[in-house]
């Protein structure tokens, strides 16, 4: 569960990136975060994994008030959150296998268990045959899927993604989105920031719309599949 309670964020330099944002995403939900460039989508995700701290208000993740979390406690919070971020992609001097294994090594899993889980995660993103390759030898879509495998390998209860389909063609984008849907179907809470509006409306999920740091619209999923939600 994620809950934002009157959250504002002002960076040291610059104006307010988020202003008095309120929302709640229950466990097992899947939601999209949309808005223009600079609306505050990335900032909101960074608050959830404590890359940034709220200037005002309170952020709760799984019942923990992140304002009260000390530096030493941050790693434990992050281990239960899978992230797919544009500028923290794969390590190019490590194989696909080692990239995906990283969160497990950090959490202290035995090598045998690591192998089992890494293979399961790679199988889910259909990359079982690429585990010994280096990321440089993969296409953009494949790299993105390795990133997703890394995000889910530790079976986090929450999955965050920032522009996961950023520079992929429509077919690949849909494939990636369907992966997130599959994870959501097994109970993972998913929050995705994206401005691929066409794809988002196609997914028919809850949408949070940010505009200049304000949450201006919280549109729930429409239950009747195939209806036009007002474009």
């Amino acid at each position, binding site marked *: 569960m994620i809950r934002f309670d009157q959250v504002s964020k002002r960076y040291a330099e610059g104006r307010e990136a988020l202003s008095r944002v309120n929302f709640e995403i229950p466990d097992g939900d899947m939601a999209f975060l949309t808005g223009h460039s600079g609306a505050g989508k990335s900032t909101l995700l960074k608050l959830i*994994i404590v*890359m940034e701290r709220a200037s005002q208000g309170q952020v709760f993740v*799984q*019942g*923990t008030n992140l304002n009260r979390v000390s530096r*030493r*406690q941050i*790693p*434990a*919070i*992050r*281990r*239960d959150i899978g*992230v797919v*971020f544009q*500028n*923290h992609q794969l*390590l190019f001097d490590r194989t696909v296998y080692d990239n995906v294994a*990283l*969160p497990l*090594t*950090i*959490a*202290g*899993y*035995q*090598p045998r268990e690591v192998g089992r889980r890494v293979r399961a995660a790679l199988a889910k993103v259909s990359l079982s045959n690429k585990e010994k390759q280096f990321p440089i030898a993969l296409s953009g879509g494949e790299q993105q899927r390795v990133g997703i495998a*890394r995000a889910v390998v*530790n*079976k*986090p*209860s929450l999955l965050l993604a920032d522009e996961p389909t950023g520079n992929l063609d429509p077919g690949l984008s849909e494939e990636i989105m369907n992966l997130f849907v599959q994870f959501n179907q097994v109970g993972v809470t998913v929050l995705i920031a994206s401005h691929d509006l066409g794809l988002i409306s196609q997914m028919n999920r809850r949408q949070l719309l940010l505009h200049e740091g304000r949450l201006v619209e919280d549109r729930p999923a429409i239950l009747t599949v195939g209806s036009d939600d007002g474009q």
Partner: protein
Amino acid sequence: MTDNNSRSTSGASVSARSLRDRWFAYLANHHWVARESLRGLLQVWLASAMTWLVIGIALALPTILYLILSNASNLSGDWNGKPRISVYLQSTVSVAEGQAFAQQLGSQAGDVSSLEYISPAAALAEFTERSGFGDVLQTLDRNPLPAVIVIEPTSRQAAQLQLLIAKLESKPEVESVSFDLVWLERLFAILSLAERFVIALGGFLSLGVLLVIGNTIRLAIENRRAEIEVVKLVGGTDSFVRRPFLYLGFWYGLGGALSAWVLVGLSLIFLATPVEMLLASYQGDFVVSGLGFNESLLLLASGGGLGILGATLAVGRHLRRIEPS
């Protein structure tokens, strides 16, 4: 330690595993990190060898000086030219009295290991024989030489010798006591000065080693910035992030100490023969002693320790600043 943090609220992912499993995984990670960091160094062996050599030279210098010093104090301790004290007796002391006095000195256990009474006549005879001035001396109507007691003291330490000499000088039978103590005192003074010098130099050069390792680690941290950010993003603790760099520092330090050990060995081979030849002319068989087992161990441990310390300092300063953004 903190790597094993698990959040009670989190799902089955972390907290379900037993403490024993996590302990073994922790050890396995140490083992893996140690091996990987060493392998990384060997992959760029030329650059690593340069760093090892720099550290090696810095460690070898004080070590060689220390060896010179310990050899020098061995030398002064085992001095074969045994010190002799010549006690000149008053001319008023008769031969019989002199012999009695000598006996009395000899019976004082401890200070004196052996002594010899030389009467004025014996002294004159010896002098005549050695100097070749026999004819001249025979023209004198009186023997000008005093009786001498030559003492070989048990102790060779300056302080104890000084005490013995003062005691002898205070006796009424004694005219004067001669012993060249000054050179011994000077040697001891020089040795203790040199000892301080070696300690100070060792301190300075250790500081240098710390800086070299610290700077090397700083560069390594800079090079692996992207990796550190990703590791922190997926929940790596500070100690997990720190670990590879501490091992790196350890390997730098240990490798440096090993190369210092080799450098010291080579220097000894280079120096030992001429030194032994030089000393052979003064005294019997002197053997230059190198680093013993314990001293070698100490050298390696200091290298490894300095490595870890230098890395800890560098990591403390630089790692905290790197955060995912």
